[in-house]
Protein backbone atom coordinates (compact mmCIF):
# COMPACT_ATOMS: atom_id res chain seq x y z
CA UNK A 1 0.00 0.00 0.00
CA UNK A 2 1.86 3.04 -1.18
CA UNK A 3 -0.63 5.65 -0.10
CA UNK A 4 -0.30 5.10 3.59
CA UNK A 5 -2.08 2.60 5.79
CA UNK A 6 -1.41 -1.11 5.73
CA UNK A 7 -4.21 -3.51 4.77
CA UNK A 8 -5.01 -3.96 8.47
CA UNK A 9 -5.65 -0.26 9.03
CA UNK A 10 -7.48 -0.08 5.73
CA UNK A 11 -10.08 -2.61 6.79
CA UNK A 12 -10.49 -1.06 10.21
CA UNK A 13 -11.32 2.22 8.53
CA UNK A 14 -13.53 0.40 6.02
CA UNK A 15 -15.72 -1.10 8.75
CA UNK A 16 -15.82 2.31 10.42
CA UNK A 17 -17.46 3.68 7.31
CA UNK A 18 -14.52 5.61 5.86
CA UNK A 19 -15.21 6.47 2.22
CA UNK A 20 -11.50 6.82 1.65
CA UNK A 21 -11.02 3.25 2.83
CA UNK A 22 -13.73 2.07 0.44
CA UNK A 23 -12.02 3.93 -2.41
CA UNK A 24 -8.64 2.47 -1.53
CA UNK A 25 -9.95 -1.04 -1.14
CA UNK A 26 -11.43 -0.81 -4.64
CA UNK A 27 -8.04 0.36 -5.93
CA UNK A 28 -6.26 -2.46 -4.16
CA UNK A 29 -8.54 -4.99 -5.81
CA UNK A 30 -8.35 -3.34 -9.20
CA UNK A 31 -4.57 -3.20 -9.15
CA UNK A 32 -4.20 -6.54 -7.39
CA UNK A 33 -1.82 -5.00 -4.88
CA UNK A 34 -0.32 -7.28 -2.28
CA UNK A 35 -2.91 -8.48 0.16
CA UNK A 36 -5.89 -7.72 -2.01
CA UNK A 37 -7.35 -11.20 -1.71
CA UNK A 38 -7.36 -10.76 2.07
CA UNK A 39 -9.63 -7.78 1.63
CA UNK A 40 -12.04 -9.78 -0.49
CA UNK A 41 -11.91 -12.69 1.92
CA UNK A 42 -12.78 -10.44 4.79
CA UNK A 43 -15.72 -8.72 3.15
CA UNK A 44 -17.24 -11.78 1.51
CA UNK A 45 -19.53 -12.85 4.33
CA UNK A 46 -20.92 -9.30 4.44
CA UNK A 47 -22.04 -9.31 0.82
CA UNK A 48 -25.34 -10.42 -0.68
CA UNK A 49 -27.47 -7.71 0.90
CA UNK A 50 -27.46 -4.99 -1.70
CA UNK A 51 -29.84 -4.90 -4.63
CA UNK A 52 -27.53 -5.05 -7.67
CA UNK A 53 -28.75 -3.46 -10.86
CA UNK A 54 -26.97 -3.43 -14.21
CA UNK A 55 -27.56 -0.58 -16.60
CA UNK A 56 -26.44 -0.91 -20.18
CA UNK A 57 -27.21 0.40 -23.64
CA UNK A 58 -25.70 2.08 -26.66
CA UNK A 59 -23.43 5.10 -26.30
CA UNK A 60 -25.44 8.29 -26.22
CA UNK A 61 -28.60 6.56 -25.04
CA UNK A 62 -28.58 8.60 -21.85
CA UNK A 63 -27.62 5.88 -19.38
CA UNK A 64 -25.64 8.16 -17.11
CA UNK A 65 -28.33 10.82 -17.10
CA UNK A 66 -30.93 8.19 -16.29
CA UNK A 67 -28.67 6.69 -13.64
CA UNK A 68 -28.38 10.10 -12.03
CA UNK A 69 -32.18 10.37 -11.84
CA UNK A 70 -32.63 6.81 -10.61
CA UNK A 71 -30.15 7.43 -7.82
CA UNK A 72 -31.89 10.63 -6.78
CA UNK A 73 -35.14 8.71 -6.59
CA UNK A 74 -33.56 6.01 -4.44
CA UNK A 75 -32.21 8.72 -2.20
CA UNK A 76 -35.72 10.07 -1.62
CA UNK A 77 -36.53 6.56 -0.39
CA UNK A 78 -33.65 6.86 2.05
CA UNK A 79 -31.53 4.26 0.29
CA UNK A 80 -27.76 4.53 -0.02
CA UNK A 81 -26.39 3.88 -3.49
CA UNK A 82 -23.06 2.78 -4.92
CA UNK A 83 -22.31 3.22 -8.62
CA UNK A 84 -19.66 1.47 -10.67
CA UNK A 85 -19.42 3.34 -13.97
CA UNK A 86 -17.46 1.47 -16.61
CA UNK A 87 -16.03 3.14 -19.70
CA UNK A 88 -14.00 1.57 -22.49
CA UNK A 89 -10.24 1.72 -22.35
CA UNK A 90 -8.43 2.70 -25.54
CA UNK A 91 -6.92 -0.42 -27.06
CA UNK A 92 -4.12 1.71 -28.47
CA UNK A 93 -2.89 3.66 -25.50
CA UNK A 94 -4.25 1.66 -22.61
CA UNK A 95 -5.69 4.87 -21.20
CA UNK A 96 -9.30 5.93 -20.84
CA UNK A 97 -11.48 8.95 -20.38
CA UNK A 98 -13.96 8.04 -17.69
CA UNK A 99 -16.67 10.58 -18.16
CA UNK A 100 -19.86 8.98 -16.86
CA UNK A 101 -19.83 10.86 -13.61
CA UNK A 102 -20.01 14.18 -15.40
CA UNK A 103 -23.76 13.56 -15.61
CA UNK A 104 -23.94 12.87 -11.91
CA UNK A 105 -22.28 15.96 -10.48
CA UNK A 106 -25.24 16.67 -8.21
CA UNK A 107 -24.53 13.40 -6.44
CA UNK A 108 -20.86 14.04 -5.68
CA UNK A 109 -21.44 15.68 -2.32
CA UNK A 110 -24.18 13.31 -1.20
CA UNK A 111 -22.55 11.07 1.39
CA UNK A 112 -25.23 8.46 0.75
CA UNK A 113 -23.84 7.97 -2.76
CA UNK A 114 -20.48 6.59 -3.85
CA UNK A 115 -19.38 6.80 -7.48
CA UNK A 116 -16.44 4.88 -8.87
CA UNK A 117 -15.35 5.00 -12.49
CA UNK A 118 -13.53 2.05 -14.00
CA UNK A 119 -11.87 1.51 -17.36
CA UNK A 120 -12.20 -1.80 -19.11
CA UNK A 121 -8.38 -2.01 -19.19
CA UNK A 122 -8.53 -4.31 -22.16
CA UNK A 123 -9.02 -7.56 -20.34
CA UNK A 124 -12.12 -9.41 -21.43
CA UNK A 125 -12.83 -11.62 -18.49
CA UNK A 126 -10.90 -9.59 -15.99
CA UNK A 127 -13.10 -6.56 -15.97
CA UNK A 128 -16.17 -8.58 -15.24
CA UNK A 129 -14.48 -9.87 -12.11
CA UNK A 130 -13.06 -6.52 -11.08
CA UNK A 131 -16.32 -4.68 -11.42
CA UNK A 132 -18.03 -7.51 -9.57
CA UNK A 133 -15.45 -7.12 -6.79
CA UNK A 134 -16.05 -3.38 -6.64
CA UNK A 135 -19.74 -4.16 -6.30
CA UNK A 136 -18.99 -6.58 -3.46
CA UNK A 137 -17.01 -3.94 -1.64
CA UNK A 138 -19.81 -1.41 -1.95
CA UNK A 139 -22.28 -4.08 -0.84
CA UNK A 140 -20.21 -4.98 2.22
CA UNK A 141 -19.70 -1.29 2.98
CA UNK A 142 -23.44 -1.06 3.45
CA UNK A 143 -24.89 0.33 0.26
CA UNK A 144 -28.55 -0.61 -0.17
CA UNK A 145 -28.40 -0.47 -3.96
CA UNK A 146 -25.42 -0.89 -6.26
CA UNK A 147 -25.65 0.11 -9.90
CA UNK A 148 -23.19 -1.11 -12.52
CA UNK A 149 -23.32 1.10 -15.57
CA UNK A 150 -21.62 0.10 -18.77
CA UNK A 151 -21.80 0.63 -22.50
CA UNK A 152 -23.32 -2.47 -24.05
CA UNK A 153 -21.33 -2.84 -27.22
CA UNK A 154 -19.51 -6.05 -26.70
CA UNK A 155 -19.48 -9.39 -25.00
CA UNK A 156 -17.33 -8.25 -22.12
CA UNK A 157 -19.72 -5.46 -21.31
CA UNK A 158 -22.59 -7.91 -21.46
CA UNK A 159 -20.70 -10.10 -19.01
CA UNK A 160 -20.43 -7.22 -16.59
CA UNK A 161 -24.13 -6.82 -16.18
CA UNK A 162 -24.57 -10.55 -15.75
CA UNK A 163 -23.37 -9.88 -12.25
CA UNK A 164 -26.54 -7.92 -11.59
CA UNK A 165 -29.85 -9.20 -10.26
CA UNK A 166 -31.83 -6.94 -12.57
CA UNK A 167 -30.60 -5.50 -15.85
CA UNK A 168 -31.98 -2.33 -17.34
CA UNK A 169 -31.32 -1.79 -21.04
CA UNK A 170 -31.51 1.79 -22.24
CA UNK A 171 -32.23 2.45 -25.90
CA UNK A 172 -32.81 5.57 -27.94
CA UNK A 173 -35.06 5.91 -30.98
CA UNK A 174 -33.76 6.84 -34.38
CA UNK A 175 -30.04 6.21 -34.03
CA UNK A 176 -30.19 2.90 -35.85
CA UNK A 177 -28.74 1.36 -32.78
CA UNK A 178 -31.83 -0.71 -32.18
CA UNK A 179 -30.49 -3.19 -34.69
CA UNK A 180 -27.01 -2.83 -33.29
CA UNK A 181 -28.33 -3.59 -29.86
CA UNK A 182 -29.93 -6.75 -31.13
CA UNK A 183 -26.63 -7.75 -32.66
CA UNK A 184 -24.71 -7.08 -29.49
CA UNK A 185 -26.94 -9.45 -27.61
CA UNK A 186 -27.89 -6.98 -24.96
CA UNK A 187 -31.57 -7.35 -25.70
CA UNK A 188 -31.35 -10.90 -24.48
CA UNK A 189 -30.19 -9.88 -21.07
CA UNK A 190 -32.65 -7.06 -20.46
CA UNK A 191 -35.09 -7.52 -17.61
CA UNK A 192 -36.50 -4.02 -18.05
CA UNK A 193 -36.19 -1.80 -21.12
CA UNK A 194 -36.22 1.97 -21.17
CA UNK A 195 -36.74 3.93 -24.35
CA UNK A 196 -35.03 7.16 -23.39
CA UNK A 197 -35.43 10.48 -25.24
CA UNK A 198 -38.84 9.05 -26.06
CA UNK A 199 -40.04 12.40 -27.37
CA UNK A 200 -37.96 11.74 -30.47
CA UNK A 201 -39.34 10.26 -33.68
CA UNK A 202 -39.23 6.53 -33.83
CA UNK A 203 -40.08 5.74 -30.23
CA UNK A 204 -43.20 3.77 -31.16
CA UNK A 205 -41.35 1.89 -33.88
CA UNK A 206 -38.55 0.99 -31.50
CA UNK A 207 -41.10 -0.22 -29.00
CA UNK A 208 -42.62 -2.52 -31.61
CA UNK A 209 -39.19 -3.80 -32.64
CA UNK A 210 -38.32 -4.71 -29.08
CA UNK A 211 -41.68 -6.45 -28.61
CA UNK A 212 -41.09 -8.40 -31.79
CA UNK A 213 -37.63 -9.40 -30.61
CA UNK A 214 -39.08 -10.58 -27.32
CA UNK A 215 -41.79 -12.48 -29.20
CA UNK A 216 -39.12 -14.40 -31.10
CA UNK A 217 -38.38 -16.28 -27.95
CA UNK A 218 -41.01 -18.98 -28.21
CA UNK A 219 -40.14 -20.54 -24.89
CA UNK A 220 -42.45 -20.06 -21.99
CA UNK A 221 -40.97 -17.25 -19.95
CA UNK A 222 -42.09 -16.27 -16.50
CA UNK A 223 -41.04 -12.65 -16.87
CA UNK A 224 -41.88 -10.59 -19.91
CA UNK A 225 -39.57 -7.55 -19.80
CA UNK A 226 -41.65 -4.38 -19.72
CA UNK A 227 -40.74 -1.49 -22.00
CA UNK A 228 -40.76 1.87 -20.25
CA UNK A 229 -40.53 5.33 -21.75
CA UNK A 230 -38.36 8.02 -20.27
CA UNK A 231 -36.98 11.45 -20.89
CA UNK A 232 -34.16 11.28 -18.39
CA UNK A 233 -33.03 14.85 -18.88
CA UNK A 234 -36.49 16.01 -17.79
CA UNK A 235 -36.79 13.42 -15.05
CA UNK A 236 -39.80 11.86 -16.77
CA UNK A 237 -40.64 8.18 -16.49
CA UNK A 238 -38.04 7.58 -13.81
CA UNK A 239 -40.49 6.39 -11.18
CA UNK A 240 -41.97 3.91 -13.68
CA UNK A 241 -38.54 2.42 -14.30
CA UNK A 242 -37.87 2.09 -10.59
CA UNK A 243 -41.22 0.39 -10.06
CA UNK A 244 -40.63 -1.99 -12.97
CA UNK A 245 -37.23 -2.96 -11.54
CA UNK A 246 -38.79 -3.45 -8.13
CA UNK A 247 -41.45 -5.70 -9.65
CA UNK A 248 -38.71 -7.73 -11.27
CA UNK A 249 -36.94 -8.05 -7.98
CA UNK A 250 -40.13 -9.28 -6.33
CA UNK A 251 -40.63 -11.74 -9.16
CA UNK A 252 -37.11 -13.09 -8.65
CA UNK A 253 -37.66 -13.51 -4.93
CA UNK A 254 -41.08 -15.12 -5.25
CA UNK A 255 -40.05 -17.62 -7.91
CA UNK A 256 -36.79 -18.46 -6.20
CA UNK A 257 -34.97 -17.28 -9.28
CA UNK A 258 -32.95 -14.79 -7.30
CA UNK A 259 -31.34 -17.60 -5.34
CA UNK A 260 -30.85 -19.60 -8.51
CA UNK A 261 -29.17 -16.76 -10.41
CA UNK A 262 -26.90 -15.94 -7.51
CA UNK A 263 -25.95 -19.55 -7.13
CA UNK A 264 -25.09 -19.73 -10.83
CA UNK A 265 -22.95 -16.66 -10.45
CA UNK A 266 -21.13 -18.24 -7.55
CA UNK A 267 -20.44 -21.32 -9.67
CA UNK A 268 -19.14 -19.13 -12.49
CA UNK A 269 -17.05 -17.06 -10.17
CA UNK A 270 -15.31 -20.01 -8.60
CA UNK A 271 -14.81 -21.68 -11.99
CA UNK A 272 -13.28 -18.55 -13.47
CA UNK A 273 -10.98 -18.09 -10.52
CA UNK A 274 -9.80 -21.69 -10.73
CA UNK A 275 -9.20 -21.34 -14.46
CA UNK A 276 -7.32 -18.09 -13.92
CA UNK A 277 -5.01 -19.58 -11.32
CA UNK A 278 -4.28 -22.67 -13.35
CA UNK A 279 -3.68 -20.56 -16.41
CA UNK A 280 -1.22 -18.33 -14.59
CA UNK A 281 0.60 -21.28 -13.11
CA UNK A 282 0.95 -23.03 -16.44
CA UNK A 283 1.91 -19.86 -18.32
CA UNK A 284 4.59 -19.09 -15.77
CA UNK A 285 6.08 -22.53 -16.18
CA UNK A 286 5.79 -22.46 -19.95
CA UNK A 287 7.47 -19.10 -20.40
CA UNK A 288 10.11 -19.43 -17.72
CA UNK A 289 12.48 -21.84 -19.39
CA UNK A 290 13.32 -19.66 -22.35
CA UNK A 291 12.14 -22.39 -24.69
CA UNK A 292 9.09 -20.36 -25.48
CA UNK A 293 10.90 -17.86 -27.67
CA UNK A 294 12.77 -20.59 -29.47
CA UNK A 295 9.49 -22.33 -30.23
CA UNK A 296 7.95 -19.07 -31.43
CA UNK A 297 10.83 -18.62 -33.86
CA UNK A 298 10.39 -22.13 -35.17
CA UNK A 299 6.64 -21.79 -35.58
CA UNK A 300 7.09 -18.42 -37.26
CA UNK A 301 9.53 -19.96 -39.71
CA UNK A 302 7.01 -22.74 -40.23
CA UNK A 303 9.52 -25.40 -39.23
CA UNK A 304 7.06 -26.70 -36.70
CA UNK A 305 3.31 -26.23 -36.18
CA UNK A 306 1.80 -24.57 -33.10
CA UNK A 307 -0.23 -27.62 -32.07
CA UNK A 308 2.86 -29.74 -31.63
CA UNK A 309 4.55 -26.95 -29.72
CA UNK A 310 1.65 -26.48 -27.35
CA UNK A 311 1.37 -30.18 -26.69
CA UNK A 312 5.04 -30.25 -25.82
CA UNK A 313 5.02 -27.14 -23.63
CA UNK A 314 1.88 -27.97 -21.72
CA UNK A 315 2.76 -31.64 -21.54
CA UNK A 316 5.87 -30.75 -19.56
CA UNK A 317 3.83 -28.90 -16.96
CA UNK A 318 0.71 -31.00 -16.78
CA UNK A 319 1.41 -34.68 -16.62
Amino acid at each position, binding site marked *: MTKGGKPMDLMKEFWNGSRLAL*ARSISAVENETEGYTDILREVYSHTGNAQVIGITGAPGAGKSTLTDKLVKYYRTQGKTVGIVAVDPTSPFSGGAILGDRIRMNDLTLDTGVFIRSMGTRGSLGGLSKKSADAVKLMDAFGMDVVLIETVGVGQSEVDIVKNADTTLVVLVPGLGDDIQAIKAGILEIGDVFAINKCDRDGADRLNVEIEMMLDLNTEEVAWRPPIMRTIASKNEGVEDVINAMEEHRQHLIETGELEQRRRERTVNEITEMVKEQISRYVMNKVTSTGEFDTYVDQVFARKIDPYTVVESLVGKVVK
Partner: protein
Amino acid sequence: MAEKLIRVIVAKPGLDGHDRGAKVVARALRDAGFEVIYTGLRQTPEQIAEAALSEDVDVVALSLLSGAHATLFPRVIELLKERGMDNVLVIGGGVIPEGDIPDLKAAGVQAVFTPGTPTSKIVEFINEHVKK
Protein backbone atom coordinates in the same frame (compact mmCIF):
# COMPACT_ATOMS: atom_id res chain seq x y z
CA MET B 1 -0.14 -8.40 -10.04
CA ALA B 2 -2.25 -6.43 -12.47
CA GLU B 3 -0.86 -3.32 -14.07
CA LYS B 4 -1.44 -0.25 -11.99
CA LEU B 5 -2.62 2.63 -14.10
CA ILE B 6 -2.20 6.24 -13.11
CA ARG B 7 -5.56 7.87 -12.41
CA VAL B 8 -5.96 11.58 -12.97
CA ILE B 9 -8.88 13.85 -12.32
CA VAL B 10 -9.10 16.83 -14.66
CA ALA B 11 -11.23 19.40 -12.91
CA LYS B 12 -12.40 22.93 -13.53
CA PRO B 13 -13.12 24.71 -10.27
CA GLY B 14 -15.18 27.84 -10.06
CA LEU B 15 -17.25 29.60 -12.67
CA ASP B 16 -14.87 29.40 -15.61
CA GLY B 17 -16.69 28.09 -18.67
CA HIS B 18 -13.78 27.42 -21.01
CA ASP B 19 -13.08 23.72 -21.21
CA ARG B 20 -11.27 23.24 -24.50
CA GLY B 21 -7.87 23.24 -22.85
CA ALA B 22 -8.96 20.82 -20.17
CA LYS B 23 -10.36 18.48 -22.82
CA VAL B 24 -7.15 18.66 -24.85
CA VAL B 25 -5.16 17.76 -21.76
CA ALA B 26 -7.60 14.98 -20.86
CA ARG B 27 -7.19 13.41 -24.28
CA ALA B 28 -3.42 13.75 -24.17
CA LEU B 29 -3.32 12.04 -20.82
CA ARG B 30 -5.55 9.25 -22.09
CA ASP B 31 -3.24 8.80 -25.06
CA ALA B 32 -0.37 8.53 -22.62
CA GLY B 33 -2.08 5.58 -20.99
CA PHE B 34 -3.64 7.24 -17.94
CA GLU B 35 -7.19 6.84 -16.73
CA VAL B 36 -8.71 10.29 -16.77
CA ILE B 37 -11.79 11.26 -14.84
CA TYR B 38 -13.19 14.44 -16.30
CA THR B 39 -15.80 16.04 -14.12
CA GLY B 40 -16.87 18.97 -16.31
CA LEU B 41 -17.43 22.62 -15.66
CA ARG B 42 -18.26 24.65 -12.59
CA GLN B 43 -17.01 22.33 -9.89
CA THR B 44 -16.73 23.51 -6.33
CA PRO B 45 -13.51 22.66 -4.50
CA GLU B 46 -15.59 20.31 -2.34
CA GLN B 47 -16.87 18.44 -5.37
CA ILE B 48 -13.36 18.09 -6.74
CA ALA B 49 -11.98 16.80 -3.46
CA GLU B 50 -14.84 14.32 -3.04
CA ALA B 51 -14.51 13.03 -6.59
CA ALA B 52 -10.74 12.73 -6.13
CA LEU B 53 -11.42 10.68 -3.01
CA SER B 54 -13.97 8.23 -4.37
CA GLU B 55 -11.93 7.76 -7.52
CA ASP B 56 -8.73 7.40 -5.46
CA VAL B 57 -6.75 9.41 -7.98
CA ASP B 58 -3.00 9.84 -8.11
CA VAL B 59 -3.19 13.28 -9.67
CA VAL B 60 -5.55 16.25 -9.43
CA ALA B 61 -5.13 18.49 -12.47
CA LEU B 62 -6.87 21.82 -12.05
CA SER B 63 -7.72 24.01 -15.00
CA LEU B 64 -8.66 27.64 -14.50
CA LEU B 65 -8.85 30.59 -16.85
CA SER B 66 -10.88 32.99 -14.76
CA GLY B 67 -8.19 34.27 -12.45
CA ALA B 68 -9.47 32.67 -9.27
CA HIS B 69 -6.57 30.22 -8.99
CA ALA B 70 -4.96 31.88 -6.00
CA THR B 71 -8.03 31.13 -3.92
CA LEU B 72 -9.37 27.96 -5.46
CA PHE B 73 -6.21 25.90 -5.97
CA PRO B 74 -5.05 26.13 -2.35
CA ARG B 75 -8.62 25.47 -1.22
CA VAL B 76 -8.72 22.20 -3.17
CA ILE B 77 -5.40 21.18 -1.61
CA GLU B 78 -6.70 21.99 1.85
CA LEU B 79 -9.79 19.87 1.28
CA LEU B 80 -7.72 16.97 -0.04
CA LYS B 81 -5.58 17.05 3.08
CA GLU B 82 -8.68 17.15 5.30
CA ARG B 83 -9.83 13.97 3.62
CA GLY B 84 -6.54 12.23 4.30
CA MET B 85 -5.34 12.38 0.73
CA ASP B 86 -1.77 13.41 1.43
CA ASN B 87 0.04 11.79 -1.46
CA VAL B 88 -1.95 13.18 -4.33
CA LEU B 89 -0.01 15.15 -6.92
CA VAL B 90 -1.73 18.48 -7.58
CA ILE B 91 -0.93 20.31 -10.78
CA GLY B 92 -2.53 23.31 -12.42
CA GLY B 93 -2.94 24.98 -15.76
CA GLY B 94 -4.79 27.74 -17.54
CA VAL B 95 -4.40 31.48 -17.46
CA ILE B 96 -1.98 31.84 -14.57
CA PRO B 97 0.51 34.71 -14.44
CA GLU B 98 4.14 33.67 -13.84
CA GLY B 99 4.22 35.91 -10.81
CA ASP B 100 1.50 33.88 -9.11
CA ILE B 101 3.23 30.56 -9.51
CA PRO B 102 5.57 30.71 -6.48
CA ASP B 103 2.61 31.22 -4.13
CA LEU B 104 0.76 28.36 -5.72
CA LYS B 105 3.78 26.13 -5.27
CA ALA B 106 4.07 27.20 -1.67
CA ALA B 107 0.46 26.17 -1.20
CA GLY B 108 1.22 22.69 -2.58
CA VAL B 109 0.64 22.89 -6.32
CA GLN B 110 3.64 20.98 -7.60
CA ALA B 111 3.67 22.31 -11.13
CA VAL B 112 1.81 24.83 -13.25
CA PHE B 113 1.55 24.29 -16.99
CA THR B 114 0.67 27.52 -18.74
CA PRO B 115 -0.62 27.94 -22.31
CA GLY B 116 1.86 26.83 -24.92
CA THR B 117 3.32 24.04 -22.83
CA PRO B 118 3.47 20.81 -24.83
CA THR B 119 1.18 18.23 -23.32
CA SER B 120 4.11 15.82 -23.35
CA LYS B 121 5.66 17.87 -20.56
CA ILE B 122 2.61 17.25 -18.40
CA VAL B 123 2.77 13.53 -19.13
CA GLU B 124 6.49 13.46 -18.31
CA PHE B 125 5.95 15.29 -15.05
CA ILE B 126 3.21 12.96 -13.94
CA ASN B 127 5.22 9.86 -14.80
CA GLU B 128 8.19 11.17 -12.86
CA HIS B 129 6.35 12.31 -9.79
CA VAL B 130 3.60 9.83 -9.12
CA LYS B 131 4.67 7.34 -6.50
CA LYS B 132 4.15 3.83 -7.76
